[in-house]
């Protein structure tokens, strides 16, 4: 069995201390140790973006980060966006604009979009295309996703 290392971090605003197995990805750690299954596993090689989370505020592919690298960091997953049972305005905009069909890419799309809106509150198409360059939607809801992000940016 692999070595374990104690890591300190915050997840969705709360501090936590856990044992992380060396060799485990952040993606597996989030799903199987923290039991936050909103973050999805897709390609596991950084090409699809379904596993996108915010690490110190920046969108990263959690399949390409090791759980032990979470030590000392701030993690936000899709579960961290709603407050007191109320959806984030970006989540609501995705629903209002039907910005998904199967929904598998949605958590990653929303996390990448959330980071975009933080650094650029009024993004244009080019900004959106760049921010989502690592997020695939096999249903092809790209147009609706763009509209949802723009709608959210107006609220």
């Amino acid at each position, binding site marked *: 069995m692999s*070595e374990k290392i104690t890591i300190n971090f915050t997840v969705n605003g709360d501090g936590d201390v856990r044992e992380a197995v060396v060799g485990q990805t952040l993606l597996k750690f989030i799903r199987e140790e923290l039991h936050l299954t909103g973050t999805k596993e897709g390609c596991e*090689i*950084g090409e699809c973006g379904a596993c996108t989370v915010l690490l110190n505020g920046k969108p*990263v*592919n959690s399949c390409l980060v*090791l759980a032990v*690298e979470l030590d000392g960091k701030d993690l936000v997953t899709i579960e961290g966006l709603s407050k007191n049972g109320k959806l984030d305005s970006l989540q609501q905009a995705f629903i209002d604009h039907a910005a998904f069909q199967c929904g598998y890419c949605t958590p990653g799309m929303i996390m990448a979009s959330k980071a975009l809106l933080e650094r650029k509150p009024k993004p244009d198409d080019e900004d959106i295309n760049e921010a989502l*360059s*690592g997020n695939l939607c096999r249903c092809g809801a790209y147009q609706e996703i763009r509209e949802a992000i723009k709608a959210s940016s107006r609220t």
Partner: protein
Amino acid sequence: MLSYEYVKCTALNQAFQLLEKGEKVYPLAGGTDLIVGMRGGKFAAKMLIDIKELEELNVLKEDDQGITIGAGITLNAVSNYAPILKNIRILAEGCHSVGSYSIRNRATIAGNICNASPAADTAASLYCLDAVINVCGSGGSRSVPVEEFFTGPGSNALKKGELVSSVFIPKPYPQGKGIYIKASRTGSVDLATVGVAVQNLGKTVKIAIGAVAPTPVRAFSVERAVNENGEKDWAKAAKLVHDDISPITDLRGSREYRYHMVEVLVRRGLEQTMGV
């Protein structure tokens, strides 16, 4: 799950010792190539040494000699660094071509060249800028011109116990226009099928190409025709690039397609930087 040791380094010396003593010890910075490569069986690591938060490797500064980009600096940080955006467009474009936005939040320019893919997107631009790779180890530091750093597909000039501390872009920067043009199967995430960097140096031109030889290469034949023989017909000059490359067929494109695309992209690059 893969089994290996993980050490978060707190000093450069610690990293040197671990690299020197151990077998199959890999430095970890962004991890975007390393973690994929380990999962695919390309790297059989026994130990990862995490160097990305070492202070010495997190330098990003410009002085009167040029720009130093530490090994811990991400590609997004490089392509958004004001002096690079303003004065060295070709490098911003090269860095911006790697992977996707979220990959570039982790991946580093030093990692891109250490991985030594012949298709490394930053390499062609670095060739055009005469970049210098600063290498350090317990035996001291040395500097390697970027064109000597790539020694073959996946292999570089690092010796056992050494790691790249920074990438250096010397002044004066080229005054003319420089661009990086990438042909790939998808708009993002994919590696280059062919990547061409063309830099106008005032009266002369410098051209470097990725994914058409065991390492990134200079288009010396084209450069000679333009710089020494005064060739102004860019289509004619671009044809000469066939003498500079030895592409292979792989999943991204056939050998013949690469020959064709290189010529097209070199011509476009010349048109866009040297004037029609």
